[in-house]
């Protein structure tokens, strides 16, 4: 890292950004995680997936969880959504202890999880109908949400005919239609190609700007984390613990032009330091292995 750019510290924030974080911390706490631990029994002994996690997520915050593989980020989001149970500790939503999944905590999964037998519109109506909303009202609301994610003209299509990005937009619309208190996204763009992923990030930012919703986002993509979040929770593996909670110094509104700004790069560099394993020592000279016998000049 000798010839890298001179970057400011990721801790330095502009006045506007500092002001924004002050406001954010004054907002009421939406989700509170208290001393959360999760242990798995394996044949090799006990595995501590999560150890003593404490976290406060404020209203209308965009928080991202990042960490090396096996650090328990998926376990964490699943426990928060109520799909898994912690070994100890509590999850409180607006002060109420949560047990089991519920409509107030929406979730978007990596593998889309749209109901293939329902049309796009009916997929979005699913949660509304379960809540007991009349089908006419549910349909009207579903169409509004499809309008927001830009898929109104595919309302009658089946999920099977949509591309991955479109499916994920439907999944987001389906979760938001339920008006959840908090929305969990578990590596939602992990299966998408780079271009679709970039446009999906833009979509998500736009939706988040227009909809009053708190978001907890899990990813392993550093750019994605910095680009989208207010704060980034970095987890460490084995045992899964909080390494650092970074306040992203990049001002909002965000746009792809910010990818090369000093604040962005500084934050990303910090994430790299936290997550990437130490570089492999390269002191041995390994002769090139020739695959053909040709004695050319190629080195």
């Amino acid at each position: 890292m000798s010839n890298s750019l001179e970057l400011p510290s990721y801790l330095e924030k502009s006045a506007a950004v500092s002001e924004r974080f002050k406001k954010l911390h004054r907002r009421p706490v939406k989700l509170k995680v208290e001393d959360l631990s999760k242990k798995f029994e394996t044949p090799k002994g006990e595995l501590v997936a999560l150890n003593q996690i404490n976290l406060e997520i404020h209203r209308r915050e965009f928080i991202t969880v990042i960490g090396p593989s096996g650090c328990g980020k998926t376990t964490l989001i699943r426990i928060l959504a109520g799909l898994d149970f912690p070994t100890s500790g509590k999850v409180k939503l607006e002060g109420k202890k949560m047990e089991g999944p519920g409509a107030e905590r929406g979730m978007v999964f990596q593998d889309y999880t749209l109901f293939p037998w329902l049309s796009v519109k009916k997929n979005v109506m699913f949660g509304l109908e379960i809540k007991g909303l009349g089908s006419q009202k549910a349909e009207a609301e579903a169409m509004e949400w499809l309008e927001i994610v830009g898929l109104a003209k595919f309302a009658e299509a089946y999920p099977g005919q949509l591309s991955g990005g479109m499916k994920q937009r439907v999944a987001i619309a389906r979760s938001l239609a339920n008006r959840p208190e908090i929305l969990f996204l578990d590596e939602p763009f992990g299966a998408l190609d780079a271009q679709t992923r970039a446009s999906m990030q833009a979509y998500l930012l736009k939706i988040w700007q227009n909809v009053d919703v708190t978001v907890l986002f899990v990813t392993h993509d550093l750019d994605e984390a910095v680009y989208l979040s207010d704060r980034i929770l970095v987890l460490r593996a084995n045992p899964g613990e909080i390494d650092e909670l970074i306040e992203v110094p990049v001002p909002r509104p965000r746009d792809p032009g910010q990818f090369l700004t000093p604040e962005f790069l500084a934050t990303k560099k910090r994430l790299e330091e936290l997550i990437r394993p130490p570089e492999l020592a390269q002191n041995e000279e390994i002769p090139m292995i020739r695959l053909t016998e040709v004695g050319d000049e190629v080195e």
Partner: protein
Amino acid sequence: MIKKKAKNKDHWFSIRKELPPARRTLLTACSFFLPLLVWITVSYVPFIWHPDIKLQLSADRVGVTTVFTAGDRMSKDFFPTFVEAVRQENRTTLDAQKKGKPLSGSRRDNIKKLRHLSPVGVANGWLENNQRQDDEKLFEIWKGLAEETLTSKAISLSKENLEIIKDNWRALSKATPTFNSKLYPTEALLKLIPQGVSSNPVYLPAPHEVIAAGWLDFNTQPDNGMPTMWERYRHSLSIIFWGFAYSCLLGIPLAILCGSFDFFSKLHEPFVDFFRYMPAPTFSVLFVAFLGTSDAPKIMLVFVGTFFQLVLVIANTTRLLENSLLEAAQTLGANRRQLLARVILPGILPNLYNDLRILLGWAWTWLVIAELIGEKTGLTGFIDTQGTRYNFDRVFPVIILIGLTGFFTDRLLFWLRNLFFPWTEDARQAPKGPLTRFVLSFRDRTAYFKKSDS
């Protein structure tokens, strides 16, 4: 995709590559045509198999009680021995005549010998089928053939036999120029030499025989109050329907519960798994004992035969539903009942349908056994009766009918699956013929079949 196909156009044998549609159609046709061709070839080309001789004249030999009537078969190995034995008998008779001490036989024996010619009479239409023992008519046939006023066209009589006919007629006409069985000679007549054509064993009738027998069976009203073939067919179908319907009615809900709740799975599946190893037919006597000899034990057998398999197969299908769909529904607020009704049921439906389609095929196997318990009924009853009488030409049409019924119900259900579940990957990939497109035009989900742009 299209490029790949074009590239491999010239290869009939490319690993994991689809052939062009025309070739696929051709091969599909061949898959049915080739077995048929084998059957036709074996039946009509004499030197391929034909291990037997099918007798055209009735025959017997002295000292052996078995009488072969025309239509009976004997192996080609044995036939010369049999012919030689009859020739030897004739030589003895002739030797005795030459020595002036003709062998004396009873009139009864002579009448029997004369009756050996009756198949020739029937084959040529000189006798009705029920006149095989009409000695007066036979007398005229012997006369006609000996004096060459009659010629057998249907069965060409060997020279040897024509000589025998003349010899016998000489003896017969000497004794009684006009028919009078009381005046039949008492000295032994000659026996007709067994004559036959090479043929396949009785269990492999030729296609034309099968078609003729089938046509006759399905178009005639059997006497003695037996049901017609179509009534038998309906009866068989009704047993399979009710057996399978009860099986579905009880099995599907139980299976879905087992697949959804570990509680029901652990409570029921171990026993079901054990029970299915006890072959259903072993319970048949029990069923007859407590259900009587009507259709009830038969329906019960089809039920027992399919129920236990069905529960296990569908429970497994239920478990194969992606768990993430259930989790997604839960984060949307679905409770247990809603998960069952709105996620599990619609989610497994296409696979459940497919399972039932396959299980229905098994039900046919159980039907065949079911129809033989208690009172033999239906198509299998007919097969059983005709089989014991060696009427295999009448057995084959019924076997083929069962096969065709199974095959076409299966194809129909397979086709309907894509209409019922247009959202499945299979339905999306399946080629759509004109009929499919016509039916689909009535559905509102037309958007699904248009090309999507992302």
